[in-house]
């Protein structure tokens, strides 16, 4: 009796492992839910579809013809900038002033409308390396890794057109893109955009800078670095 029991049990276990497999096995099948109590609540969650709405979008788009709270409606009807008034998220673009658009009226403005501190530059550097360096390269020469994979017409910052470009226009390019570059306004919030503009200016300066441009207090640190 026992012998048959153990033979049967062994066969059962072999069958079980054959069917159910082991922990951590890769599988495309949805996870088994043993106690699914309240795991799935019919609430709206970030980036999750919702059958409550007819288009099944959980994340709602602004209703056509409405203006989000905190957003200044465009002032003039005959506006040379077609993107004006386009919704970019309250946290991101919330007005028509220089800080939000990079321009005064219909002119590009220049200057960083935030206090340019060491922290802002560090932030700009970090954000630049996340979002911009992929194409424009770590030092802004337009030689980022994307170029090796077929992205063409990446602008180098080290050309007169971009050295002379107004800060506001660079800001606007970050938000809305330009030519083949798509906008990054949905990913880079307002302060970070200006931090990146400040860092791009620093990259441009660095191309033609000499040791004499470095404040006396900082030179020793630079000279201590290993020379390439």
């Amino acid at each position, binding site marked *: *009796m*026992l012998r048959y*029991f153990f033979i049967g*049990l062994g066969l059962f*276990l072999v069958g*079980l492992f054959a069917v*159910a497999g*082991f*922990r*951590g*096995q*890769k*599988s*495309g*099948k*949805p*996870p*088994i*839910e*043993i106690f699914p109590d*309240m*795991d*799935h*609540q019919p*609430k709206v*969650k*970030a*980036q*999750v*579809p919702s059958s409550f709405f007819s288009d099944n*979008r959980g994340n709602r788009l602004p209703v056509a013809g409405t203006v989000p709270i905190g957003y200044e409606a465009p002032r003039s009807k005959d506006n040379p900038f077609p993107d004006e008034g386009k919704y970019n998220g309250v946290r991101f673009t919330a007005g028509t002033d220089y800080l939000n658009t990079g321009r005064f009226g219909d002119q590009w403005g220049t200057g960083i409308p935030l206090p340019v501190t060491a922290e802002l530059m560090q932030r700009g550097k970090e954000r630049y*390396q*996340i*979002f911009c360096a*992929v*194409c424009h390269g770590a030092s802004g020469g337009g030689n980022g*890794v*994307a170029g090796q*994979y*077929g*992205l*063409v017409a990446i602008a180098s910052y080290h050309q007169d057109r971009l050295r002379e470009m107004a800060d506001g226009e660079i800001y606007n390019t970050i938000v809305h893109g330009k030519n*083949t*570059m*798509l*906008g*990054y306004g*949905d*990913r*880079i*919030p307002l302060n970070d955009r200006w931090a990146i503009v400040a860092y791009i200016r620093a990259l441009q300066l660095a191309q033609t800078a000499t040791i004499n441009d470095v404040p006396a207090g900082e030179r020793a640190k630079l000279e201590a670095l290993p020379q390439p």
Partner: protein
Amino acid sequence: MANFFPRWANWIPLKLLLIVMVLGAVVTGGIWYYFTPKYTNVGYMPAQPAPFSHAIHAEQLGMDCRYCHSHVEVAGHSNVPSTQTCMSCHSQIKAQSPKLAAVRASWETGTPVQWVRIHKAPDYVYFNHAVHVNRGISCHSCHGQINEMPVVYQAQPLSMAWCLECHREPEKFLRPPSEIYNLNWRPASAQEQLAMGAQYKKEWNVNPPVTCGGCHR
């Protein structure tokens, strides 16, 4: 009076007892082994509408996690990139690739790509990405070596016991803020990790909740 039962019948109760005990052990072991997210969830590797490879983008190209998951530092939800993020490069790179058909369709119609979610906490768990990545917990701690995955799969069980392992002893996992998105970073040694983690825990006043209300509201 003759024996009704042969001699071997004396063993039947003992044998039955043994069978019941073995069966009990097998059932217990089976539940222990199978009725856990370590079995039900780990290794979940669904096919996606477009076969996105983290191995290519994060490792080979060296792109930062935040290029796509751009709001992970400020939001509870770590966003899946919008189609515009994909098209930032793929309007030119591999623009005709059949693998990107779903992305192009989304770009043309404005309908989101229906990415299949892999890492899911139950809806009564309020996990916040921002507080974790801003306080020394790397993507790697929960998502594994995702920068080397051609197809993403769930590497950790994301069970409550698993969460609590770290919430009780965060010093084992805290890492320098500069290395949060460097998934290849490893502490030099276990002792060094503990010393560093204990220091961060003190300096940042890391005090992860282990009460119900910390994660369940």
